[in-house]
């Protein structure tokens, strides 16, 4: 099975993605949503909270599994995808679009260098 890995963003080994513009939008990959199966609940921080590179910032739950979400980069949360409260299935349906999780104002641009590009991430999940 092949998974969509857009090359306009970067990836964490734990399957989160981040755009490199500001604010940075964060979500989980097509591979991750497929592994989880039907997403039924997403627990996210509030606007104004700070999240830290490589540390857990929330939880995504599918019918069969609970999975921590890890921050691709550090920064302040400036937006949370409120649609996921009532439509968590958007994470399955459109993981790189309407199923985004949150937007952050990155505090350390150098952290993007720790992330994988699409080719590297594609190899990881191959």
């Amino acid at each position: 099975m092949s998974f969509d890995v857009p090359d306009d963003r970067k990836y964490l080994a734990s399957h989160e993605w981040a755009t490199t513009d500001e604010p940075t939008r964060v979500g989980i990959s097509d591979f991750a949503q497929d592994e989880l199966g039907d997403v039924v609940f997403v627990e996210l921080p509030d606007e104004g909270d700070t999240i830290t590179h490589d540390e857990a910032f929330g939880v995504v739950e599918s019918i069969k599994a609970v999975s921590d979400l890890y921050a691709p980069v550090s920064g302040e949360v400036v937006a949370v995808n409120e649609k996921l409260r009532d439509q968590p299935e958007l994470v399955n349906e459109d993981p790189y679009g309407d199923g985004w999780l949150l937007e952050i104002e990155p505090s350390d641009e150098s952290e993007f260098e720790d992330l994988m590009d699409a080719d590297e991430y594609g190899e990881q999940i191959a």
Partner: protein
Amino acid sequence: MATRRPPLYPVHEDRGAGFTDFGGWEMPVEFDSIRAEHAAVREAAGIFDVSHMGEIRVDGPDAETLMQRLTTNDVSSLGPGGAQYGCITDEDGVIHDDTMTYALPDGSYLFVPNAGHDEEAEQHWVDYRDETDLDARVTNETEDWAMFAVQGPEAMDLTVDAVESVGAPLAEESDDIADLGRFSITEATVAGADCLVARTGYTGEDGVEVLCPVDDAEAVWAAFDCQPCGLGARDTLRMEMGFLLSGQDFDPEENPRTPFEAGIGFAVDLDTEFVGRDALAAQQEVGVEEQFTGLVLQERGIARHGYEITHDGEPVGEVTSGTMSPTLNEAIALGYLPTELADDGTEVGVVVRGDEKRATVTTPPFIDK
């Protein structure tokens, strides 16, 4: 121990199933999505490969006595073609396994231990037979049979289409498999194979469980044209009904429970002599201190196995099974509570990752079936 695989493993793999280890068996957990498979069973029909379930045949002059002594229900009440739910308990009345016992048309008994329990059950039967000098043969046929469950409101129509002919004991009254009574089993031909078809299941829906020789598994599976379903959907379906899962909702080591605590006292007949009978009679006399019940979360979150249940901020129990109900779109859970807290409507808490969420005690089934 080496992982066991169902005979249709390659067929499921080609179909794109994901697999999980369950009781030492590598079984399909999901074919398409749990939600889609669950909905198919509630609204139409689905087929599950449940070949991980054990099959032990017991025959000979004392077969009935052996079954009567080792299961909690009244096996002597079963006529040929009858089926019965019961428990296998120890001297303390603790459930080691739950099982369906089938009285086969040929006079033998077939019982169905849970995944990975077949060898232990076989040994238990053999040891007890030898100790008590009963004349019965015990044969572990788990590797000989494939087993499929076809469940849902359209399951019997599919079964009528798939079954080519029926044998004893149904044939005496009818040749239509649709006339097979609930908790009954008959011989039947499906895709040219000699099968056993029982009107039993684990989803709360009407339907059948089909046992077929492993060599015929592919043809028999293909004879039922409906949604293939994995163990993921089987789990959400049984949880909506409040059905127990062996090893999770009870476990002789980690969560020892009696049938009365587990809410399956209907499967215990104290008028029969079985291992554990005296302990259970004593418990029935005094009543249980804890009982199995359901919870519905009133706040966002999902209760999972092992999460603490609280009352007035104090721990009072643990969730044994929990999920988001695909039918209700509500978080439901099962677990044991002190009897005085087990009434419907009692407000309790479930600690979800450190946060106490409000929940309401709700006797299952959670859905109207």
